[in-house]
């Protein structure tokens, strides 16, 4: 029990040290980089929102900018977390000289930064858009938080599988950016289930991000949208991916060549 507590203490120290280090190396000492993480989704959402408004694509009773923002922030989080998990072990390998640092820490830290950045972006953009009257005050904050957590859990479990997989195969590394684009239609970012025909809905029911996204949208827009979600889908998929990812990490660690 004492060793377990000591181990926990060391691990939390390691993770916080790694977080600080990652923040410094990524964003520098001036926090402009971290600010950019929040401004970028805002800019994108406003531009897409304006385009859609001009093209009169929208026919629903929610604001386009609000709709795009609520979809794009989680998607950005997913894409950058996945992108940064690729080859995470190789790029951090000089840290493996310190035996307390485990390779899962690298994934955890990189994911945590994206998750925190995404949350801050949500709060920052949300505050601005609520102030401007574009975004409603969240109808049911509980659904928003639960949906976000499920979305994050799914993202993390994908990262945990992708990171070791990218060390095993060079090809995969090249495919990741394309795949994250291709999966936009099945991520629920720019559509709601209720807009789609029954047939498509039955297929998208199996997509973890769609379910989490519908939950978040319901949390924000409340009864103005008709959500279709089942929290067990993202939960079960993540619970299946997590042990697979951990096993793969263990295997990759055994053969990892550290310079």
């Amino acid at each position: 029990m004492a060793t377990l507590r000591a181990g926990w203490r060391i691990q939390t120290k390691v993770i916080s040290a790694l977080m600080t280090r990652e923040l410094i190396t990524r964003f520098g000492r001036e926090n402009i980089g971290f600010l950019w993480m929040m401004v970028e989704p805002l800019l994108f959402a406003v531009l897409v929102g304006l385009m859609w408004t001009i093209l009169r694509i929208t026919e629903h009773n929610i604001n386009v900018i609000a709709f795009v923002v609520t979809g794009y922030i989680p998607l950005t989080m997913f894409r950058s977390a996945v992108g940064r998990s690729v080859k995470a072990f190789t790029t951090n390998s000089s840290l493996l000289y310190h035996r307390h640092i485990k390779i899962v820490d690298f994934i955890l830290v990189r994911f945590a930064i994206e998750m925190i950045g995404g949350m801050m972006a949500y709060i920052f953009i949300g505050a601005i858009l609520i102030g401007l009257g574009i975004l409603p005050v969240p109808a049911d904050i509980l659904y928003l938080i639960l949906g976000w957590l499920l979305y994050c859990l799914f993202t993390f479990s994908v990262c945990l599988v992708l990171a070791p997989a990218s060390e095993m195969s060079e090809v995969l590394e090249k495919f990741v950016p394309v795949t994250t684009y291709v999966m936009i239609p099945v991520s629920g970012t720019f559509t709601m289930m209720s807009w789609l025909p029954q047939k498509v809905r039955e297929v998208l029911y199996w997509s973890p991000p769609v379910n989490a996204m519908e939950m978040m949208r319901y949390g924000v827009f409340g009864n103005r949208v008709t959500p279709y979600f089942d929290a067990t889908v993202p939960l079960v998929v993540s619970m299946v991916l997590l042990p697979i990812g951990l096993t793969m990490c263990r295997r990759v660690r055994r053969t990892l060549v550290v310079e």
Partner: protein
Amino acid sequence: MIRCENLCKSYPMGHGRKRVLEGVNFEVMPGEHIGVLGRNGAGKTTLIKLIGAVEMPTSGRVICDMRVSWPLGFAGGFQGSLTGYDNARFIARIYDRNYADIREFVEDFTELGRQLKMPVKTYSSGMRARLAFALSLAIEFECYLIDEVILVGDQNFHRKCHYELFEKRGDRALILASHNAEVIREFCNRTIVLNGGKTTAYDDIDEGLAVYNTL
């Protein structure tokens, strides 16, 4: 104590595998200073990495109940884009030490002055060596793993290392990879000769060096 049991390590190379270590067995007791002798590519660095748990053995195992340092060499252990101070802070945190103490020791031992505020990637190899030694000495390990190439410092640095490692910390174990007879004579009291993936231990330094010279 550190015990290597049937340690094997191979790396994929082309379609086959390059076997670097093929069944290494030896023990290190507290206070022992072991010189690992071997030609270039004999597997000295690989052996040190396995003992330091930087890489994992293909088969066999390392049993270890001492606090072992990370392998002190030019590569690894540091983050080049961070400053000397940032690296010291990072290492203090992951080894759960007080940063103020470590910082004081590092400033004193390295004599790097303002250079500690510069990114480590701008350091010369001698400066890196100073920083690496300072940090690992400040953390107080029970066994130090040293790649000989890092002992490139000037006389002053040599004297300091000697004092800190042998006079102040004579009870610590040391594993030093080298192909330099003088370094081995200066720092070690036992040798292990690494050849063809196997090791042979010699309690007499001169005997070990004689065997090494015939390789």
